[in-house]
């Protein structure tokens, strides 16, 4: 009894810094944001007061066609970019897993796009897709200036341009995660497969891929969550245009909250994003977790 009594205060004392950190920097803002999202607040119209409106903002969000479109664009972006990044990442991982001369250099080079700050990379891609001096046009059409395409002016191309820029930037990160998975696959499995007469394709399909599943799922988890938070690419490359074709939900939330000064509604958009990511993470953690368990029982 006495032992427990004397230990408890020390314990609290020990975890106090961590608790204070989490409390002030994570818990308090989150709770505060949630409270804000239950009020109607127009920054430029203080005469209207800041009335409590319950879940009105959330109901409005469900009916807001702009928000619906923004969610659509975001999901489209997440699905397309994540699939491409996993496929490309797998390719990158398989290449840099092999032994060859200069592998260290290749491994480092592959990570360069990932190391560039997104804002800088976005600006670069905006230049690349420029209609006058863009590299994309030069590569495709050479000096036939009359064929040059203003990529970011067409809704479809503008959307694809953003996906493209994101894939370029983060496929190597997915590759890195998958490489870690490749490195833990024991050589014996391949030896056994070879003895059984499996060719390279069969070894990949029946040995590498199943054993790589946990790593692939981890990469998928990270990339989905990260892609859902996309903001800077859109902010720099298109500002959501043309005609909202590239307006992702985070950018819409930013505009509502900071530019328009609709604090309550803008916060409810952020909370909706938070909830979506939370649900996605739970779903993934369950799937990834169960697959890891399965692997242990094999």
């Amino acid at each position, binding site marked *: 009894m006495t032992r427990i009594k004397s230990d408890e205060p020390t314990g609290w004392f020990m975890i106090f810094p961590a608790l204070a950190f989490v409390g002030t920097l994570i818990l308090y803002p989150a709770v505060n944001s949630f409270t804000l999202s239950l009020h109607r607040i127009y920054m430029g119209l203080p005469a209207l007061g800041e009335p409590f409106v319950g879940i009105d903002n959330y109901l409005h969000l469900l009916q807001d066609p702009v928000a619906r479109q923004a969610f659509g664009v975001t999901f489209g972006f997440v699905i397309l970019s994540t699939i491409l990044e996993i496929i490309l990442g797998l390719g990158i991982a398989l290449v840099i897993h092999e032994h060859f001369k200069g592998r260290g250099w290749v491994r480092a080079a592959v990570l360069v796009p990932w190391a560039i700050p997104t804002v800088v990379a976005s600006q670069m891609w905006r230049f690349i897709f420029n209609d006058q001096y863009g590299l994309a046009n030069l590569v495709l059409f050479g000096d036939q200036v009359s064929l040059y395409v203003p990529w970011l002016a067409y809704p479809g191309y503008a959307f694809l341009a953003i996906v493209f820029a994101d894939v370029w930037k983060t496929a190597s990160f997915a590759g890195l995660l998958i490489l870690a998975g490749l490195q833990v696959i024991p050589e014996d499995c391949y030896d056994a497969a070879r003895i059984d007469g499996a060719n390279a394709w069969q070894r990949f399909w029946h040995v590498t891929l199943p054993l790589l599943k946990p790593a692939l799922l981890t990469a998928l988890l990270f990339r989905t969550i990260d892609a859902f938070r996309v903001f800077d690419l859109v902010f720099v490359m298109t500002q959501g245009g*043309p005609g909202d074709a590239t307006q992702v939900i985070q950018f819409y939330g930013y505009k509502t909250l*900071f*530019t328009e000064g609709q604090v309550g509604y803008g916060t409810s958009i952020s909370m909706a994003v938070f909830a979506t990511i939370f649900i996605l993470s739970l779903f993934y953690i369950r799937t990834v977790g169960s697959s890891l368990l399965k692997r242990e029982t094999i």
Partner: protein
Amino acid sequence: MFPCYSGIEAIFFHTMKFLIILVVIGLLGPTPFTFGTDRSEDRPTILKFVTMKPDQAKAWEEAIGRFERAYPSIQIEREIAPASSTAYHDLLTQKLKNRDPSMDLFLMDVIWPAEFAAAGWALPIDKQFPPSEQAKFLPGPIQAGIYQGHIYGMPSRIDSGMLYYRIDLLEKYGFTPPQTWGELVVQAKTIVEGEKDSQPGLRGYSGQFKQYEGLVCNMLEFVGSHNGTLTSEDGNRSTLASPQSIQAVTFVREQMINQLATPAVLTYQEPESLAVFVQGKAVFHRNWPYAWGIVDDPRYSKVVGNVGVGPLPHFSKGRKVSALGGWLYGISTFSPHPEEAWKFIQFMTSADIQKYFAVKGSLAPSRIALYRDREVLETNPQYESFLPVFQTATPRPRTPAYPIISNILQRYFSRVLAFPDTDILKEAQIADQQINRYLALVHPNPS
């Protein structure tokens, strides 16, 4: 003892040591300075001026330097915000919402004073800036600074949409500057067709049609010059679905975006559209007066000496309309130094300084008298044709809810221009509904 215990202990002591060092630095650091300058009368008042990234950085530095020499008891400390008006607005409203007392002064885009006044962020300056003084300025920016009978801003420079054109190309084909949009289309098509072989990249028109604030200005000019409006006279209703407005938007989509200008303009703000023109790749160009300084500078421009500038055309059944732009100085309600801030504003908007900005930086003055000043006109002969445009420039809707309404307008215009299959009338009706919802929030209405 557990080995980890000593580890935690070590970390604890290291942290404490670090904290103690921090505290000591904090206590000792400022003391030498405070000792030295503790004579409060001699210490200059520091005014913090949050400003946008200036077009003419050197001219600003010189003007502020002159002020500090004239008023040695006041020092100006500048915080430079991004060059985008929207990003600057975001920064200012954040500071104002937090009642930041460290900011004394700012600039307001002509679309902000209603919001800043309604929110209680900008100080009214009726006493210092009476109607007798206001009469010396162009009417547009003065009106922009007034909200519910009080004035909140003092005009710095004025902007309004202008048509830049290639004199050499117009003369070659025997044209005079177009008076109507119809004439502009015919002239541009003839010239582009005629120059097809020698200049394959030549376009008829370049303007600003990206989804941003500038799109509202460009479209206001088309809609207005077809006798349409964005909002009704009393500012209570949105009028995008009126036939005049719909026809003007249809014209822009069919004639401008999909023909003369090419869809590339859907990605252009001012710099990109100007780049096309100064490279000699557009016959006509819409921009603000500042563009003249670049068009006329051989370091940036390939068309020096071949460019004319004048009022924008109108539709044959309409009148000339040019969007009002420009900046006003405002004093923060939370500033502890409103009197010193006023001195600075008075100095910066004086005839001398405005003249300096006009001569050095091609920034159009807001004082009417300067348009008769010989020195100003010598360096800026184009001002002669600017003045009538400035005197009649059309403001964007004046309401505290403008930031919200602008985003709806941008969405509407950008959608119907970028998606050629959209039903303009239907989109306009949706936008009207959305805008009316927010206009209804603001009572009583600004006038």
